[in-house]
């Protein structure tokens, strides 16, 4: 009998197939291995302007370990002054925002899973620094970091690990839904939903993949996609830049752990991750974000690209997940990442 499960944050119902028609090994891996040519890689010898870089002590201009540059084909950019206008029923904002590329290593390595923990830690430190800096523009409302790895994820065929940061003058819809869901839970229980969630996951255990000193990774109870994973910090903080500061080494450990399990267990699939954090909180009247410090909790969502969303999902928001998260968690837990 299939199950209907409700996502406790955004109240989205998901159909979970439990017939075991799909075994974890039966998924098609979408990974077109066309990583281009190292010789032509624009990230190996990057000449783009530098917004931020991590360097070894005493390193020269070309000795960066992590480099942040403007995205050459930005989704949003600062083409004009910030301007809102109405168009009849509709609200419009002229192109405004920031889109940056984080080059995660000077070496031509495609998958973040293959970087050292220390290198991933530097990437996390770069995120934290950029988030803190972007917060200064008071027209911006939301900053998120994301990664597309592999062609099926939307990435270009360049085998050089990088991720991206977008700062937008609006709150994206899914973020808003999460904020509203977490606030409702807080209003009723006076507790953080995500704190309750990760504690229940640890107590229950069957969806847990890894627990470190400061983080826990698990497959969500009502996932949209097979093998979806979420990383939640144990220390409560609504804000990534504040919450992750100082914990970058431990975060790198659990992120690498997850990505290695994908790579080795699922045959190097394309994947995406998105860092979800609270909107930039301005000190202003109107107290829009009255309890957000208490009610929201930053986290990372990671989705390997194994199933296309068929028509049903796209137009209804009702998802069918073809394998229970308990099975995918067990499978990922058993992947030998030290082999």
């Amino acid at each position, binding site marked *: 009998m299939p199950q*209907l499960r409700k996502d406790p944050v955004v109240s989205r119902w998901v159909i979970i197939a439990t017939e075991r028609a799909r075994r974890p090994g039966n998924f098609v891996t979408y990974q077109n291995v066309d990583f281009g040519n190292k010789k032509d890689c624009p990230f190996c010898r990057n000449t783009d302007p530098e917004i931020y870089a991590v360097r070894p002590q005493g390193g020269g201009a070309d000795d960066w370990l992590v480099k942040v540059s403007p995205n050459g084909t930005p989704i949003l950019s600062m083409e004009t002054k910030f301007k809102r206008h109405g168009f009849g029923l509709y609200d419009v904002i002229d192109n405004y925002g920031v889109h940056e590329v984080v080059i995660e290593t000077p070496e031509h390595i495609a998958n973040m899973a293959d970087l050292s923990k220390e290198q991933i830690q530097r990437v996390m430190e770069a995120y934290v620094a950029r988030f803190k800096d972007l917060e200064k523009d008071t027209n911006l409302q939301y900053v998120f970091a994301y990664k597309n790895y592999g062609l099926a994820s939307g990435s270009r065929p360049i085998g050089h690990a990088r991720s991206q940061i977008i700062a937008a003058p609006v709150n994206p819809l899914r973020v808003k839904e999460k904020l509203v869901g977490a606030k409702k839970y807080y209003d009723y229980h006076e507790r953080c939903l995500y704190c309750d969630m990760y504690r229940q996951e640890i107590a229950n255990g069957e969806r847990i993949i890894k627990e470190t000193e400061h983080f826990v990774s698990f497959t969500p109870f009502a996932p949209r996609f097979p093998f979806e994973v979420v990383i939640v910090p144990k220390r409560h903080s609504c804000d990534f830049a504040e919450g992750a500061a100082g914990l970058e080494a431990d975060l790198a450990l659990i992120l690498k752990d997850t990505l290695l399990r994908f790579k080795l267990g699922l045959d190097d699939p394309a994947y995406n991750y998105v860092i979800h954090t609270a909107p930039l909180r301005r000190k202003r009247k109107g107290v829009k974000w009255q309890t957000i410090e208490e009610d929201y909790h930053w986290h990372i969502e990671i989705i390997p690209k194994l199933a296309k969303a068929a028509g049903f999902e796209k137009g209804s928001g009702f998802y069918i997940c073809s394998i229970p998260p308990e099975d995918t968690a067990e499978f990922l837990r058993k992947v030998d990442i030290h082999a």
Partner: protein
Amino acid sequence: MPELRRDPIIGQWVVVASDQESLTPMAYEKEDHERKQKSVCQFCSGREGYTPPEVAAIRLNASQPNSPGWVTRVVPNKFPALKIEGGLDKRGIGIYDLSNGIGAHEVVVETEDHNRDMADLTPEEIICILRMYLDRGTNLAKDKRFKYILVFKNFGESAGASVEHAHSQIIALPMVPKLVDAELEGSSNYHKFRGRCLFCDILEQEYADEERIIAQNDKFIGFSPFVPRFPFEQWIMPKNHQPDFFALSEEDLMPLAQMIKEVLARMKACLNASYNFYIHTTPVGYKDKDVYHWHIEIMPQLVNVKGYEWGTGLYQVLTSPAVAAGYLRDVDLS
């Protein structure tokens, strides 16, 4: 210069390309829709025994159920996402809610002809499909367990169709889908504030702006929404206020079939893309007749949804709806 646009229904912000910088239909990857499954197709006439027994059909000359002689045929899905037997047994585990996966999942075989899609059918044939939607929807709505009847269609492999013979699907759900729920909430809020139907107001603006209209007749309009989530997204809406698709009147059948035919034929000539369509209507037994307005959303499959779009809901659309509507309008259907 692209702009951020917020749709007034669910409040989603989308980055939309300017008219000048919009991608043309030629810029998207084309797919071939060659039919390869005919020799083994279970939906073809003469192979009725390969599907579960039909639950409804429109038949010529009093032909027998589950035999040839049908125009449109409805059968249970052989691999249903939800099971029809049993109770919901709603329960909780700590902070989580779940229930049994109860629901109905049926397939509407739209024509006996293996080589035609809905875009190739006559309005009279499309009326037969619509009659099946209405008949099955009304019947399934009598089941107290079901809260929502979703009619949708996947055409082409990249849009999720595993069977190439023209078909659509009906799913009866014990919950209201998230997107519809969000639309209902948005339009209810709008109605509370203004006392008018949000969708009727959207149509007023479409008439005034004109540039996003693709086709219209006395009763229906096809247009590209001002805030699309996908390039060349199209909506079909009744011009007068109608909350419930399943209450469609007899006299609206022909103009709706004509509008569906025209929009799909234009899309086929312009893009020849795989696509999905969904009928969004009020939930079963929804009392308030004033706040919602049923419509069909049509999404050609031209781009893959990117990871950050799934993750955040911040979509980027590289063809503006005015440009998309222009291309679709300019198709010569004669």
